[in-house]
């Protein structure tokens, strides 16, 4: 019973980290061009940094 006091906050914190990571990836536009990213990794040329 006592260990629950530690374990539940830890579980919630880890879940929260996942949520924050998802929100961050959404905000930074990682779902905007799913197909393009798959191709870009194959191209040899350095086409420069992406725009914001």
């Amino acid at each position, binding site marked *: *019973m006592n260990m*629950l006091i530690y374990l*539940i906050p830890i*579980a*919630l914190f880890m*879940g*929260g980290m*996942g*949520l924050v990571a*998802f*929100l961050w990836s*959404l905000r930074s536009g990682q*779902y*905007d*061009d*799913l*197909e*393009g990213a798959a*191709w*870009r990794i*194959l*191209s040899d*040329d350095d*086409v*420069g*940094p*992406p*725009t914001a």
Partner: protein
Amino acid sequence: MSCCGVSAEGVLALETASITAEEIALASHPLGEGLQQLDLSVPDVHCGECIVTLEKALSRLPYVRSARVNLTSRRVSCVYHEQTADGPTDPAGIIAAIHATGYRTNLLTQADWHSERAKNQLLLAVGVCGFAAANIMLLSVSVWSGADAATRDMFHWISAMIAAPALIYGGRFFFRSAWGALKRGRTNMDVPISLAVTLSYAVSLWETMHHGEHAWFDATVSLLFFLLIGRTLDHIMRDKARSAINGLARLAPRGALLVSPDGSRRYVAVEEVKVGDEIAIAAGDRIPVDGMVVSGASDLDLSIVTGESRPVAVSDGAEVSSGAMNLTGGLVVRATKLARNSLLAEIISLMEAAEGGRARYRRIADRAAALYSPAVHSLALATFLAWGILGGDWKQAMLVAVAVLIITCPCALGLAVPVVQVVAAGELFRNGVMVKDGSALERLAEIDGVAFDKTGTLTLGSPMLVRTDATAEGEIDALATAVALATHSRHPLSRALVRSCATTLSRFDQVSEIAGGGLEAIHGADTYRLGNEAYACGTPLKTSASDAPLTEVVLSRNGVLMARFFFEDTLRPGAAEAVSRLQAAGFSTAMVSGDRQSVVDATARALRIDLPLGGLTPKQKVDEIARLSAGGHRILMVGDGINDAPALAAAHVSMAPSTASDVGRQAADLVFFNDRLDVVPQAVDVARQAARLIRQNFALAIGYNVLAVPVAMAGLATPLIAAIAMSTSSLIVVVNALRLTRMDSRKKKSWASLSVKGPVYEVTPA
């Protein structure tokens, strides 16, 4: 560019597309610090090499700071400096650089920021509800596996605190829609959803406060999670289709070249053109507003305006309508109407008046909800009264009634329709058919007749050489001369001659184009003329020939006839298969065209269409559709022109090719990006399969309720049973929807065997 070959169509588009710097400036939006962002659609990009080619070409321009291609939405977003050290920049160079790489590009009609934001909000809600559902489920599992009373209470409290924000954040979409429906005195699927979610939360909270055994927080949140996934997928699918359609070239001109009385010329937006203004229209441009020709002579291509497949000669005093393409010579036109009163405006008002099938149609899910929610809610009420009166324990009665509501909560019902439609729309998307709206698929499954427009829909709208009658001199020689002459013109018949054979160019000393007549070339002492007979041979114009289904062009040397060429509009590939497959499936077919009756009859004979109707005005087209609908038929209208738009809006459901006029694309429910017309029966097929799967899903969901409701009414449902039953029924419904793709791949084999007859065209999944 090994894999990125440029189609012949693309080259044609390059020649005719003229985007001016003024238009680009209107389309760009400032980012501050002298930077401008320009978003362009590039419909042809499809691989990694395309990305590299375009981004390199754009980054090479000195004033472009960055360029990034988005392969999913087929767009390129380009940030450029307004000013460089050498003065203001000319953003038209961006378009030119893209054209130089061989890609087509269009300015975006209007960036749909609103829809983008809605998508992100939905995704966020899915994320939040997913987080909440996972954590509450973890706690619930511990409760179910037998936590002691104190631990259970603590877990319930934690669950309640996690569920509350998720409920508000993820549930607002449903609450808002349910409230909207209730305010108008109607009911939709969101009403029972909202009710079940709110009630289950309230009862669980009450139980928690009174140290009760059963709390339903996990059911509340996972229900929201499942439904939000369905809704988000639906939104993304429609978004993709809309964005592909928005990326198409705008056919209507945005501006016009105004000629002032002092002779100077100025480019203004179409809306600023006033009655009486004189506008210069170069060959290859579209007419921006209705008007009268003041000077100049030319041929106009009216195929997109009236469906007339043959170019019409105009000269001083002739009336011209907006949307027509000026082919051969420059014109000066005096505007007789404002842009907002022009032909296009009349068409739009006709469209609004005609809005038929779509406005009356009620979504299948809403119809189901109209039966479902009263049944379920009266069941819950009956349970409450029965337990209360018979058992005397009203608190227990309340708990059982809420359990009934939760068990019957339309989780599977809420997913039954959107999941099938998302899968079906995705399947059509891969075949190059964009579905703008889920209800379009439901309506498409109900049709029993198909009406086609002719020019641009059943045909490609571009003529083809079908016969050559040469005099003694020999056919090859005459054809070679005619082709050599025709390369100097952009008239559709000349283009057709050039396409018909590849010859080495014979040299002429001088070539001139006479608008309304034809081409004249001088070679040594001989004068060659290519055009109508009156012009080429100097004979008076024959009026009887004007009703013949074939269009005729004559080649003469020094006024003596050398050869006659006959042209016919090319049928769209797959048109015959499409019509025969539709007829075999029991659909009646009709043709509603603005073209001459003789041409319409000839096309109808070639395709075996039941009911050919020619010479129709836009209003008459609507009347024909209304007449067929009044006879109890549900009509699919396939059309492309400005004149088809009202009929597209009036029909039960409508389709347009991607080459259609702007207003036609807007009016249609489905847009196909494919040259072949057999996507029409294919789309009907997929829609019918989807309708069958939706019915199956409803049957499954109702069957589940028939089993679960007695258990709940007997007061035996626990949160554990509810969680298992709800997720199982949702999973079954989703798996059933996925069967659509499997049915389809079996069907595809039979399609492949059908289509080998015709020429093989590559499917471009736009």
